[in-house]
């Protein structure tokens, strides 16, 4: 199996005003293709920083971080951007573009990646169907419920056929019933469509839905658990 993410003694220190904050203090881990991993930790544990690093949104201070085999510490901004096209982001606050319809939102990453209009239109509709939003294709985010918006966000994340999905508190902003629907959707994608998933959350129940849970505290991984489904 191919290794999607590999970190060795990964460290990230950033400045909060004039105070250096060691957000990630020597993390080593590995995520293989097809895996469904959750990173669990309370706020301030450094999990958001981990997410930014794995998402190629930020560069490590030291240590090794390979994403899809690429050492990101050697990349410039442009190359980081290219790398991000291979990662499917899903945010806590959905982060859809409000003025675009569901379909246009799903098309956006494909437009950015220069996919032809006809092709991306077809794929966007397929993806929305796959997440159960066949009849919401032409709705704008404001006309959709929280759960529906998150499904659009997941469809968007899958648009460019990414190496893995990277989720940040995917159910943090929706009610528990809808949240469990999102979880089943993620599981289905993982099992049926072989989508690899890395999920960052502070919600223990949600974290247990993944195959594996890495518990983070104070910038370090303190335990790793394989979850029995």
């Amino acid at each position: 199996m191919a290794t999607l993410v590999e970190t060795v003694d990964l460290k990230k220190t950033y400045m909060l005003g004039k105070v250096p904050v060691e957000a990630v203090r020597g993390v080593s881990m590995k995520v293989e293709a097809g895996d469904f991993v959750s990173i669990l930790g309370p706020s301030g544990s450094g999990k958001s920083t981990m997410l930014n690093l794995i998402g190629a949104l930020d560069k490590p201070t030291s240590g090794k971080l390979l994403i899809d085999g690429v050492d990101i510490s050697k990349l410039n901004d442009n190359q980081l951007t290219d790398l991000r096209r291979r990662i499917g982001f899903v945010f806590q606050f959905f982060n859809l573009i409000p003025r675009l319809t569901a379909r246009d939102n799903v098309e956006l990453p494909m437009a950015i990646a220069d996919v032809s209009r006809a092709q991306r239109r077809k794929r966007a509709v397929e993806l929305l169907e796959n997440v159960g939003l066949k009849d919401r294709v032409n709705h704008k985010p404001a006309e959709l419920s929280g759960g529906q918006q998150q499904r659009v966000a997941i469809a968007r994340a899958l648009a460019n056929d990414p190496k893995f999905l990277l989720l940040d508190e995917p159910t943090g902003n929706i009610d528990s019933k809808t949240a469990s629907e999102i979880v089943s959707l993620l599981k289905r994608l993982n099992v049926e469509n072989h989508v690899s998933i890395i999920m960052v959350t502070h919600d223990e129940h949600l974290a247990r839905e993944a195959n594996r849970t890495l518990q983070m505290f104070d910038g370090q991984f303190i335990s790793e658990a394989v979850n029995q489904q």
Partner: protein
Amino acid sequence: MKTYDIFGYSFSAIKLRKLRAALTTLGVIIGIGAIVALLSITQGLQLSITNDLSRGLSSNTLIIVPGSNALGSGVGNGVSGGSGSRPRTGLNLGGSGASSGFRLYVNYTNQIDALSPDITSSLAVIQQSGYVNADGLNSSVTLYGVNFNQYSQLYPTTFVTASGTLPSNPADNEIVVGARVNDPGENGTLLFSAGDNVGIVWTNGTTLPVVNETYTAHVSGVLQKIGGFGLAGPSDTGVYMPLSQAENFFGATQCEMIIVQLKNSNNSTVTDVSKDITNYFGGQVTVISSTAVLSLLSTIFGTIQLFLGGIAAISLLVAGVGIMNIMIVSLIERTREIGILKALGMKSRTVLSIFLGESAIIGLMGAFIGILSGWILANIVARLLASGAFGGTGFKVTPLLTPEVFLGALAFGVAISIIFALYPAWRASKLKPVDALRYE
């Protein structure tokens, strides 16, 4: 990202804030509109004056007026026409030249004819301000004394009668008049017609007390309407009497200008003969050629256009600052969106293009609408000018929108919009995705 996708995305952002975009565009419209209106009016004015001049001053004629720099001094004073009892210059464009005290005399034509083999003939013109009296009503005119035969040869298209005849061998009391002399309102209400007798009045200021000299003249013909400003050549407000009659009536043999006709209009001929004449009169005269006048005119209009265009351009700069302001507001509002776009793999230069695209669309729309409204405004102003709304009897100007002005205004509008959007666009492109995504 493909160009049309970039523009599509930019356009969707503009559509979201229609009022804001419309107001920003309005700034560009006003700036471009002002530039186009001012330039097309002045260019139209330049064209009609130039046409007017070339009709009155063909390229193979020279006009000699007294004074060493008659052309250079005071164009404005000439255009208003001969006010005062003794206008110094023949050509209305000319200046004063009064300081020299030099005079031209009618019989100088003999010497001038002999100056160069390139000269066909020369013609003296006596010119005074005066009045025509018909039915007890005085109307202000310019009185000219010319040789009718020579004058009609010189101006075969304009010194032509519309009614009556142009006598080839006129009696002393015969005159021909310009179209506006007998129809001052240009509305068909005639003060008199060809064949009538009218009084000619000239206020003689050479003696004290001042006296009004008069005689009764027979109107042989009325000239065709010429139009324009009457800058040179026959004028709609001119009254033409035979040269000998003018000499007797004004009691003087001096003339206001001598028109020289050349065998050809070669540059070298014009230059050489001009130099010969100037030298012959010891530099006391100015020889005006159409090329000299036209180049002076184009210099003057160039300056006017630069000045007016510059003022209008300032309003476009203001519009540019408005664009910059609105783009910065937009950048702040959309910080999070920029973060999302970057997380989705959008390159910095694409973010830059999206912001520049937005202002380019605004600039393009503003420039198009601005050119259109400037053109409409110019035509409204031209109408008002023609109707005399700004005083006087009005004059006709056809606004001129050259391709240069059209394309220049378009390019300028878009360029200003893009230049002022550069800074906000650059800032947007430099946003770090981590920070932008965290932005509330």
